[in-house]
């Protein structure tokens, strides 16, 4: 289900939900996922941020659309080679490599999708090429790596082995300025879109950092944003925004005009079915319950509604597109991915 404008030029159909909470240190399921990437073979890579109790198992899990759990990799919590503390986002590059940001270690770590650790680059600081809380990451058509340098309020461009190319931006709310920016995406023309998190907007730049446009403003209405975390752009130029503070996803046209919004409509995943098969008494009561309840006014903020309404997005932190028009919405607080298909 989606709320649409009167004549939207895009439609998205709900496909399925993948996931289940993983309370342990490995195995199928997700632990506070923060980002998803999908390769050309349809393999789905899920970046598990993990809470402090499970920090030793910060990892990338791999599964298929059919919810076959294919494996996982990571080297645990810390600052050693291949280790992580606060992972934020990842990007798939050529040669089956995954670039992963760590906002605590102030660096980008590179793994092969096979799970082999390759390298890391980046040092803490504010000079050219130095990082402070790297968040979103994307690869452009040249193979250059775009990194959101969160606490330095700028975007930096690197070669794939971490050599500094360019930087732009400063702290503020004007054009080309940022306030704790998070996600980033590159469109088919190599333009760069940044989720300017605390300015409640998406900013668009040319590949060399020229400001082109700003979309969205603070608010709860259509086209308005609250702390956007993730952004993606499809081949037709539609802009998908993880409107995190509003616990929803919005789709904008290439001109930034509102097209439609998704609130979430999660269903029982295959892994969840397995759980309920072993716990029929819980399933029986669940089937008698209203999982979309009316709530008292003091609990009617998007966050509270989502905390009580299991099918809705709760912590929709990233939006990812695959090569066949599917949209994957990663939900941190629900440990799952809702999948939609563009018509």
């Amino acid at each position, binding site marked *: 289900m989606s709320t649409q404008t009167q004549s939207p030029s895009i439609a998205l159909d709900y496909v399925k939900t993948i*996931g*289940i*909470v993983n*309370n342990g240190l490995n195995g199928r399921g997700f632990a*506070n996922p*923060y980002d998803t990437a999908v390769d050309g073979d349809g393999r789905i890579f899920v970046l598990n*941020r*993990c*809470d*402090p*109790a499970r920090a030793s198992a910060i990892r990338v899990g791999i599964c298929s659309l059919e919810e076959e759990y294919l494996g996982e990799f990571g080297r645990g919590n810390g600052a050693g080679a291949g280790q992580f*503390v*606060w992972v934020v986002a990842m990007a798939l590059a050529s040669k089956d490599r995954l670039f992963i940001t760590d906002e*605590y270690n102030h660096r980008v770590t590179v793994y092969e999708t096979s799970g082999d650790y390759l390298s890391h680059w980046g040092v803490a600081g504010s000079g050219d090429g130095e990082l402070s809380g790297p968040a979103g990451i994307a690869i452009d058509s040249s193979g250059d790596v775009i990194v959101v340098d969160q606490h330095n309020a700028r975007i930096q461009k690197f070669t794939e082995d971490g050599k500094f190319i360019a930087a732009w931006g400063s702290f503020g709310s004007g054009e080309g300025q940022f306030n*704790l920016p*998070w996600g980033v995406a590159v469109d088919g023309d190599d333009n760069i879109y940044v989720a300017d*998190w*605390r300015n409640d907007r998406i900013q668009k730049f040319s590949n060399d950092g020229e400001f082109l446009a700003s979309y969205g403003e603070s608010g709860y209405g259509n086209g308005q944003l609250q*702390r956007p975390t993730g952004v993606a752009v499809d081949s037709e130029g539609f802009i998908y925004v993880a409107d995190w*503070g509003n616990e929803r996803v919005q789709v904008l046209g290439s001109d930034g005009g509102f097209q439609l919004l998704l609130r979430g409509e*999660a269903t*029982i*995943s295959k*892994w*969840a079915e397995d*759980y*309920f098969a072993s*716990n029929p*008494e*819980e399933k029986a*009561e*669940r089937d*008698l*319950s*209203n*999982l979309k*309840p009316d*709530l*008292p006014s*003091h*609990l009617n903020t998007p*966050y*509270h509604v989502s*905390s*009580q309404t*299991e099918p809705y997005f*709760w*912590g929709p932190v990233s939006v990812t597109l695959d090569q066949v028009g599917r949209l994957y919405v990663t939900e*941190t*607080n*629900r*440990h*799952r991915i809702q999948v939609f298909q563009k018509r």
Partner: protein
Amino acid sequence: MISNDTSLMAHLLRRAGFGASRDELEEYLEMGYDGAVEALLNPSDPGNMPDDLIRRYHVEQSELRDLAGSAAYWMYRMISTTSPMEEKIALFWHSLFATGYAKLNQARSLLNQVDMFRRSGLENFEDLLLELSKDPAMILWLDNNENHGSAVNENYGRELLELFSMGIGNYTEDDVKECARAFTGWTLGNAEYMSIRAAKDSIWPYGRIAWHFEYRNEDHDDGEKTFLGETGRFNGEDIIAIIVKQESTARFLATRLFEFFAADEVTEGGEKVIHEMMATYFSSGYQIRDMLRTMFHSGYFKSEAARFARVKAPAEMVVGAIRMAGNYQNPALGIEKVSNTMLYMGQGLLQPPSVEGWHEGLEWINSGALLERVNFAAKELSDVKSPGVRSIIDRLEASSGDGVLVPSDLADRCLDLLGPIQVSDETRSVLVDYASRQGDLDLTGHQLGDEAEQRVGNMLRLVAATKEYQLA
């Protein structure tokens, strides 16, 4: 020489807040005592760490699936608020209307209850009891979801009278039964499913689902009831309206407020204040804020007898030390370890030991807890890199004139800036002896972490280890 105004204001801020840095103390002194009482009793924008920042960096505090992250979330609130009374009154009710995670496995709903305490904890007691009776965490905690028109469960009805309002000895067993009947049908949405999930500690498949109140008219016993001598087809609201009229309720509430905010022990002087608070309770129409105003303005509260007459609860100790040191002003790794430390001191937030809450006063202190308390405060206050400690060093330098402090001045000024804290002659003598070992302290041109600064850190560490620092 520390003025009585300064000592009195510091006393007020230890009780209505978590103590105060010298900067905060000076802001309140500018308001005067009466103005400060009003500012504390009428919380405005608390200016605490914003939820969006907390959620961004702490996934565990966004989801609130587990206890540790949930307690840490409240810690941030207490550490960063500029309206400390809002948190103190929430702590008071959290101990009195004690509701614990262990049975519920639902921290979001527990924190919603704490939000309710912030929102209503200084208002009308009748309204507060009504909100409490509709609070889904309380409902499941005391089994009111099992209280049906066809099969009464007395648990909530009993505790409402015994632990939350009148106190034992002021009602009969028949009153308990009739009270429980009136609350039949007061439950939470999807009660059966949520009850199973709570009992199994189920997080499956997609994490916790928070709770909300639901009234089921078909499950309510609408028959005639006789409660405390009054008869009617009472529902829960009617029962609460009768409870709040009782003198025993006024005494219960006044006494518990007094013991939390004024003194661990009720002396003859304290008893007089409690009577004044009871009078205010009735004259104001059950307003909690007005009762506290009466208490804060009483001669007893302002007197020396009330100073340092309470043992700091672990939350007061830990939050007070962190606020004084100026730490954790932004989301940071390790905050959940701080809330765990409080647990080792005997007060785990969101996990009171039973429905009776914590046993306070001297019961906070045993050898293990004392060691934890001293170690924690000493570590926080001796780190010269902490912004609050740096501020203390700067004030010491400024107050010395030529940058040089004789040993007795160093001890006295540290006691002043951490409170003022009143200590015994014996304690002061130990502090001065310690300072004397290295002679006068020259802070001229001090640099971060140099020997002079470390001497200040060591003195602050020693003050934090005194018996007097453990008292509020």
